[in-house]
C-alpha cells in the first residue's frame, strides 16, 4: 500500500506534522494485552463491585431502578444491526432504526400525554436542561422556578449549564415533603418545574404548580417517572407543556448510571423549539411508507449557532431498547409493574414504621419509594445492611452532596428506600429484620 503512494514507511504519512509537536518516544501507555488477559484484569474490578444487583438485593432507586429485563429484550436489543449502526443519515438503509425510533416516540407520547416526543436525549438531568432552554426560547425569560422535589442531581446539572445560558435558577423548598409553591415569586418566569413523584417518592398534587405556571405565562415542565404512567396520571393530564423523564427503567440495566435514556416530549406549540432529533413518517419515491429524521432545520449541523440545542449523538440504542421492553411488557404488563412497585413499597413502609428508630419523613402519599428518618446516619445503616447483602437504599445526604434545605432536621439520617416489581415478600420481610438489627447494634 505504501508503494502505491510512493512512500517507504508509515512515518512518511506523518512527515508533514511539525517535528516540534511530534511525540518522540511513543505513548506512555502499557503494551497491549490479549483479550483473556484483559478479561482477568476486569474480573478484579467486577469482584470489587460488591453492590451489584445480582449479588445484593437492591432497595436503592433515586432515578435508577432494578427492573426485570427478560432474555428476549436483551437479545433483540443486542442485535448488531442496531448496535453497530450510525445515526440514520441515509434513510434508505436505516429504516430499522428509524421505525424503532418512531415506535419509541409513539410510546413516549402516550406515557407523557404530550403530542411531540423527540428521539431521545442523554439522560433525565440533561433533558431537564433542554426543557429549560426551550422555555427560554418560548418566553424570552431567564428565570426558572424549580421545585426542590426535583432530583438533586438534575438540579445541580441545571445550575451547571445555567453558567453558560445565564438562566436564574430559583429552587422552591419542600414543606412536609411537598413543594411550597406559595413561597416563591414566579413573576417573569420562563418555566415552572415540578417532579412526579418527587425525588423523595411523594406524589404531589400538581394543580397548584400548573396554576402558577399559567398565571405567569410560563411553560409547565414535569419531570415524571415513566413507569408511574402505568397507573398514575400522565404529565399531559396534569397540564404539562413539557415532559422530561428517565427511561432507564425500560430495559436498560443499572449500569452504574449510564448510558441511560433522557425522555422528552412537548406540546405541538413548541415543536419548532424541540431539541435533538425527531423521526417522522413519509413515503419513498414508490409511495411506500418510510421514516426519516425531520425538522432538521432546527439542528446544530444546519443551524449552527442558532440551533435549538447542540445535541447530535443521543441515546438511540437505549430508545430502541425501551421500545422493545415496552413491547414485551405491553399495556397490561406496564400496569402490572407499576402496581407491584406501589404494592411492594407500601408493604415495606408498613413494616418499617413499626420499628424503633424509624420515622416517616412525611405523611404524604407515595408511589414506589419513600424517605424515612433513622435514629442513626443512613450511610452507617447502608454499610451495616450491606453485610447481609442488602443495598438498603440511598442516603439523602449523599444524594444531595451534603445538604438540601428542604430536609428538616439532620439530613444525614434520612434514607430513601425503593421497591420494584422484582422484590419478593421474603426479601422485604428480611429487609425489615436486618434494619431492626442494624439500628439496635
Amino acid at each position, binding site marked *: 500500500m505504501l508503494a502505491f503512494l510512493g512512500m517507504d514507511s508509515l512515518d512518511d504519512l506523518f512527515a508533514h506534522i511539525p517535528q516540534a509537536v511530534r511525540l518522540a518516544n511513543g505513548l506512555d501507555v502499557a503494551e497491549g494485552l490479549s483479550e483473556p488477559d*484483559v478479561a482477568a484484569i476486569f474480573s478484579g*474490578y467486577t469482584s*470489587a463491585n460488591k453492590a451489584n444487583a445480582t449479588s445484593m438485593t437492591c432497595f436503592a432507586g433515586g432515578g435508577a431502578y432494578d427492573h426485570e429485563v427478560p432474555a428476549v429484550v436483551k437479545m433483540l436489543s443486542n442485535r448488531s*444491526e442496531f448496535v453497530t449502526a*450510525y*445515526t440514520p443519515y441515509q434513510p434508505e*438503509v436505516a429504516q430499522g432504526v428509524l421505525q424503532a425510533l418512531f415506535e419509541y416516540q409513539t410510546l413516549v407520547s402516550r406515557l407523557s400525554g404530550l403530542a411531540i416526543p423527540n428521539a431521545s436525549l442523554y439522560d433525565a438531568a440533561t433533558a431537564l436542561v433542554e426543557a429549560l432552554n426551550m422555555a427560554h426560547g418560548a418566553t424570552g425569560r431567564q428565570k426558572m422556578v424549580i421545585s426542590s422535589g426535583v432530583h438533586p442531581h438534575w438540579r445541580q446539572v441545571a445550575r451547571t449549564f445555567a453558567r453558560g445560558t445565564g438562566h436564574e435558577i430559583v429552587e422552591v423548598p419542600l414543606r412536609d415533603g411537598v413543594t411550597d409553591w406559595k413561597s416563591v415569586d414566579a413573576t417573569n418566569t420562563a418555566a415552572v418545574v415540578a417532579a412526579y413523584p418527587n425525588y423523595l417518592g411523594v406524589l404531589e398534587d400538581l394543580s397548584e404548580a400548573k396554576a402558577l405556571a399559567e398565571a405567569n405565562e410560563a411553560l409547565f415542565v414535569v419531570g415524571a417517572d415513566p413507569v408511574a404512567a402505568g397507573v398514575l396520571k400522565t404529565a399531559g393530564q396534569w397540564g404539562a407543556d413539557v415532559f422530561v423523564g428517565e427511561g432507564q427503567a425500560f430495559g436498560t440495566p443499572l449500569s452504574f448510571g449510564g448510558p441511560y435514556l433522557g425522555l422528552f416530549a412537548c406540546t405541538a406549540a413548541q415543536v419548532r423549539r424541540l431539541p435533538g432529533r425527531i423521526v417522522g413518517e413519509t413515503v419513498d419515491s414508490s409511495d411506500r411508507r*418510510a421514516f426519516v429524521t425531520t425538522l432538521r432545520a432546527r439542528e446544530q449541523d444546519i443551524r449552527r449557532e442558532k440551533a435549538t440545542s447542540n445535541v447530535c449523538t443521543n441515546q438511540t440504542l437505549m430508545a430502541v431498547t425501551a421500545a422493545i421492553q415496552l413491547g414485551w411488557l405491553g399495556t397490561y404488563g406496564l400496569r402490572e409493574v407499576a402496581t407491584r412497585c406501589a404494592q411492594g413499597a407500601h408493604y415495606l413502609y408498613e413494616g418499617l414504621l413499626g420499628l424503633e428508630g424509624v420515622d416517616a419523613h412525611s405523611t404524604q402519599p407515595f408511589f414506589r419509594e419513600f424517605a424515612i428518618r433513622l435514629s442513626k446516619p443512613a450511610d452507617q445503616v447502608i454499610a451495616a445492611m450491606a453485610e447481609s447483602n442488602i443495598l438498603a437504599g440511598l442516603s439523602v445526604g449523599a444524594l444531595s452532596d451534603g445538604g438540601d434545605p428542604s430536609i428538616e432536621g439532620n439530613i444525614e439520617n434520612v434514607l430513601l428506600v425503593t421497591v420494584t416489581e422484582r422484590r419478593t415478600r421474603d426479601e422485604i420481610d428480611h429487609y425489615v429484620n436486618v434494619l431492626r438489627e442494624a439500628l439496635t447494634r
Partner: protein
Amino acid sequence: MIVTPLPGGRAASAPLMGHEAEPTLFEMSVANRSAYQLRSTGVPATALEELLPAAHLNPEIVPVAEVSERDLVAHFTRLSHRQFSVDLGMYPLGSCTMKYNPKFCDAIASDPGLNAVHPGAPASLSQGWLEILVTLEEKLCAITGMSAATLQPSAGAAGELTGLLLMRAYHEANGETRRRVLIPDSAHGTNAASVTLGGYEVTTVPSNERGLVDLVALKAALGPDVAGIMLTNPNTVGLFEEEITEIARAVHDAGGLLYYDGANLNAILGAVRPGDMGFDIVHMNLHKTFATPHGGGGPGAGPVAVAAHLVDFLPGPRATRVGDGFFNWVAPTRSIGRVHGWHGNALVLARALAYIDVHGGDGLTRVAQHAVLNANWLRHRLREILPAAYDRVCMHECTLTATPLKIKYGVRALDVAKALLEEGFHSPTVYFPLIVDEALMFEPTETESVQTLESLAQAIERIAQRAKDDPESLHHAPQSTPVSRVDEARAARKLIATADAVR
C-alpha cells in the same frame, strides 16, 4: 498496485426478502395478547385505590401494545434486516470513525459485575467501578498529554459545552469577561451551537487555499474579548493544521484558551498529543476513537481532559485515588458542578478502557498509522474520478469532490452516495465540510482491508461509468434497498411523529 478484491466488505449479499413495509408494533397488536412474565413475589395484592389517592390515579389505561413474544421477535428482527451496520459492511462515513468494534468490549460491558451496579451505591461497595474510572482517566490523559479529565459528558457535544463552561470559569476566576470564541469556517455545526450555549458569540475564522486556518485572519480576529478558539486537528477536511504552534502562541498571547475537538483523534494516536500542541482543553469521542459501537445514534461518551491550570474547575464529583488502594468521590475545589445525572456513560467508559488495554500504546499508534494509510490509499486510488479537494497527504479521512461528475454528467455527490448504497457500501459523508463543493468525505478507518478498499473503488468506477452511460438512473438510486429515496419535504411539511398523529 493491483489489488484483487476478496469476497467481503460489500453488504450487497445481505438477504432482503422483499420490499413490503413492516407494520408498526401498534398495527400488530391484538387484544389480550402479551409477552411479559414477572417474578412471583408473594407481596399482598392490595388494591391500588387503597394505596394511592384517587386524585392521582389515571382513570384511563395508557395503551402500549399487545403482542406475543413470538411476534415481538419477528418484528424487531425484521426491522434489524432493514438496517445497515458496521457488522454488515464498510461504513466509510467521514468524520464519524465507523470502525469495527471488537466484540470483546461489548462482553466486558455486559458483565453483571459492571452493568448491575447501582450508581448511588457507596464508594466502598463499588470500588471496582471507581478504579475503572480512575484508570481510564489516567490513560486518556497519557494519550492526550493532559493533566486530568472528567468522564461525565455523555457525548462529544456535551463535552464541547463542558469545555466551554470550563473556559468561562477560568476567565471568570481571573476576573475577566470575554465574550467571543473563534471557530474555523470548516468546523462542525456543533461547535457553533455549543459556543452559544456556553454564553459566547461565534467569530468565524476563514480557511486558506490549503484548507487550513488562515493564520493572518486568525491573528486579526484575536483580541482581549476572545475567550478562546475551538479547533479540530486534523481538521474536518482531514488535514493537519501545520501551523498549530503559531496558532497556539497567538491565542495564548491574547489571553485565550485552546479547545481541542477530539472528533478526529483517531488520526493522531501515538503520533502527536493535543497537550503538546498547546491545547488547554480536549474532548474525546470515546465511541469513535475507542470503539464503542454507535448504537444507531448513541450512546457515546465525551470525556474532557484539561491542562493543570484548569483541573480545579472540572465537573465533580470525580472518582479519585485516595491512597492505600482505595478510591473515593472527590469534588474539585472550584468545580463547575455536575454535567450528568450520575457519573457519565459508565458502560461506554468501561468499553473504552478494555479497548485501550487490548491495544496498548503500541497498538493505538498502529490504529492511527493504518487509519491514515487507508485514507491516503483511497484518496490516491480514486483521484481520477473523485479528485481530492486538497491534493496532498491527508490524515484519517479524505475529502473528495464530485464536481467533475456534476460538470460533465449532472451527477452530484448525493447521487454517488445513494448509488453506493446499491453497491452494498454505506455512503460517505456528503456536503460536509461546507467549504468544499460537492464534498464526499471518506473515512475508511484502520479496520478495513486493502481488498475492501479496492472493492469500494471498483464500485465507484462502476458508478462513474453509469454517470456517463445513464446519468438519469443515478438520480433514482438506490432501488435495491428496503426503501428508495424518501420524501423529506413531505415529512417536514406535515409532521407525523407518532402512530397517533392526525394524518
